[in-house]
């Protein structure tokens, strides 16, 4: 108690209340300083830097609308579909809450993909921010699980059959697959048991994990400080008070900046919600307005649009593709053996590994390897900080051809997504296969291509033009 601060004599009630609180909960006041009023962020944030705060906004929207939906939704296979229509028609303003949640789900992925892309182009995952990136990838993984499980809840045709297909992917795993699927489903086919456990995960388990990961993501970021479009470390140049010369307090500058971003985002979000909530059949799929029928598979099942790039890769792994992969794995093993530079007996390790993988590739079904490829496509994001050997963080100072490479990466991802929506076709399969190889090549060959070419000089100070 001896360290208690005293409010100045004659100060207002508000000041006295603040001092009372500060004496008993100094952590909150310190946190405000550390994370808001004295968190020095680079002053040159651009358009790409809105998406982190927008992702947090969408998370809040989903949680709040979710809470209100759960007041009326019935997680019972016999009542679920009907309860959603009950919310749409009978609950006052229920339709608004439902559309906010469905639009929010798609908005979440758009925002998160753009947020991740920012990380990629500015090298925000590079030292010392690797852990921020890893927490982020974990969030992405949880988000995919959350969306997948949430999609079963309306119990429409797409909900049911989408879940059936995806859970059957686990059945493709050799030896343990069938039992694993049985354990996930809680039954021999997707049914009430599956619905109830997905409800529990979607409503409480995964959101708690997500919240924890978001907190970790932000704390880890604030510990090392934000990156910026120039990739300049602002902490390298500080003023007499120890504040970065190119830094500005997050509050009020970026709180005010982000509020503007929120305004624009809400306009787009509301335009979709009020004027076109079905999103052309991509945000609310047409087939999902038919109650789930275990006896009738719809003509055309596809996952929701945000999963389609990965779905494309899964479908691309045909028997022919497995042969191609075997060759690639073999080549990789040989290259690593000849040029790997690993000491002593470890020289043969990659070659041995390649032989084992090549063997397994031809033992197990292409179906299983499709699942593995799809899983790896997400997991390959985690080690990105170690793949990237560029001496420079930001795309701005890398060789020009890098910019084209990233453009192709984006187009490739979009094309894979588009193909994932369409039913399979011969041409589509070839393009998906090429696209899958490009996607993996982009990451796996990065240790080499990220060092090729002429890099521009990175300035000492950020490039900033006064507003």
């Amino acid at each position, binding site marked *: 108690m001896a360290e208690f601060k005293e409010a100045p004599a004659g100060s207002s009630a508000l000041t006295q209340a603040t001092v009372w609180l500060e004496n008993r909960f100094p952590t909150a006041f310190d946190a405000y300083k550390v994370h808001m009023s004295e968190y020095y962020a680079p002053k040159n944030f651009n358009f790409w830097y809105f998406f982190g705060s927008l992702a947090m906004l969408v998370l809040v929207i989903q949680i709040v609308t979710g809470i*209100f939906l759960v007041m*009326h939704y019935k997680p019972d296979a016999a009542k679920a579909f009907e309860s959603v229509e009950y919310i749409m028609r009978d609950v006052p303003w229920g339709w608004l*809450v439902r559309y906010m949640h469905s639009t929010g789900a798609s908005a979440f992925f758009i925002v998160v993909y753009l947020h991740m892309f920012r990380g990629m182009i500015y090298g925000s995952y590079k030292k010392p921010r690797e852990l921020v990136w890893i927490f982020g990838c974990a969030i992405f993984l949880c988000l995919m699980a959350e969306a997948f499980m949430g999609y079963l809840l309306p119990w429409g045709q797409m909900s049911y059959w989408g879940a059936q297909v995806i859970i059957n992917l686990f059945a493709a795993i050799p030896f343990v697959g069938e039992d694993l699927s049985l354990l996930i489903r809680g039954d021999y086919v997707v049914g009430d048991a599956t619905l109830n456990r997905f409800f529990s995960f979607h409503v409480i388990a995964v959101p708690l994990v997500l919240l924890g990961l978001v907190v970790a993501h932000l704390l880890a970021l604030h510990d090392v400080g934000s990156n910026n479009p120039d990739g300049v470390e602002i902490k390298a140049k500080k003023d007499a008070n120890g504040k970065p010369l190119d830094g500005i307090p997050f509050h009020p500058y970026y709180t005010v900046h982000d509020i503007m971003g929120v305004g624009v985002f809400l306009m787009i979000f509301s335009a979709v919600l009020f004027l076109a909530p079905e999103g052309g059949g991509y945000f609310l799929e047409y087939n999902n307005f038919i109650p789930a029928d275990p006896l009738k598979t719809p003509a055309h099942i596809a996952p929701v649009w945000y999963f389609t790039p990965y779905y494309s890769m899964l479908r691309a792994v045909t028997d022919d593709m497995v042969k191609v992969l075997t060759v690639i794995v073999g080549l990789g093993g040989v290259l690593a053996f000849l040029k790997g530079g690993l000491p002593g007996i470890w020289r043969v390790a990659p070659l041995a590994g390649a032989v084992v993988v090549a063997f397994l590739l031809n033992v197990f079904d292409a179906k299983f390897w499709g699942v593995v490829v799809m899983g790896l496509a997400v997991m390959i994001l985690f080690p990105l900080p170690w793949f990237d050997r560029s001496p420079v963080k930001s795309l701005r100072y890398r060789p020009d051809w890098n910019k084209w490479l990233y453009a192709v990466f984006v187009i490739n991802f979009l094309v894979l997504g588009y193909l994932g929506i369409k039913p399979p076709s011969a041409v589509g399969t070839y393009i998906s296969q090429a696209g899958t190889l490009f996607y993996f090549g982009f990451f796996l060959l990065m240790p080499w291509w990220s060092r090729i070419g002429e890099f521009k000089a990175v300035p000492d100070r950020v490039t900033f033009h006064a507003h």
Partner: protein
Amino acid sequence: MSGTTTGTVGTMAQAPDEGIDKSKRTWIAITCGTGVVGGAAVAVPFVSTFAPSERARAAGAPVQVDISGIKPGEKLTVEWRGKPVWIVRRTPEQLAALKKLDGQLADPTSDRKAYPTPGYAKNEHRSIKPEFFVGVGICSHLGCSPSDKFATGAQPSLPDDWAGGFLCPCHGSTFDMAGRVFKNKPAPDNLEVPPHMYLSDTTLVIGEDKKA
């Protein structure tokens, strides 16, 4: 959270002692005002989702009853909003007996406000038609449903001059043939008279009345 910037950050060019920046204050005020309006506009629909849904309102909709089959001295029970509603066709003797009971009743003229008696039932027989009593069959003490005790005279738990009415089995409250509660009983109020009206001499609607 101050609305002004205190010049501790080296990169900001603000002349010392410039005072409060009016433009920032103005825009903060306008933004907050707009934000509050927006927030309220969002809060209203969300809170409305708490209100009874169309399904609840449909389930609580008025009930039509055909009373032509009730004989004098008989009671018909119908359900309205999950509650039992009694329609009792009183005999002339039962009606006559009502006048003499005022002194024994807690609220003989139905003035209490807890379950307000509708204007058209604020009379001696507590109903629109003297013959037919319409009341919710739930004791105003703790919610049990009283039993019929239409027979007159002494009976267990009833006084010797019992003129007919209802006895609640849970804690012994008694009500007369107009649903009025007797003094010194646990129940404080008369039986509730629900909104009701007659569409014809034989059709009664419970849940709706003429004075909307």
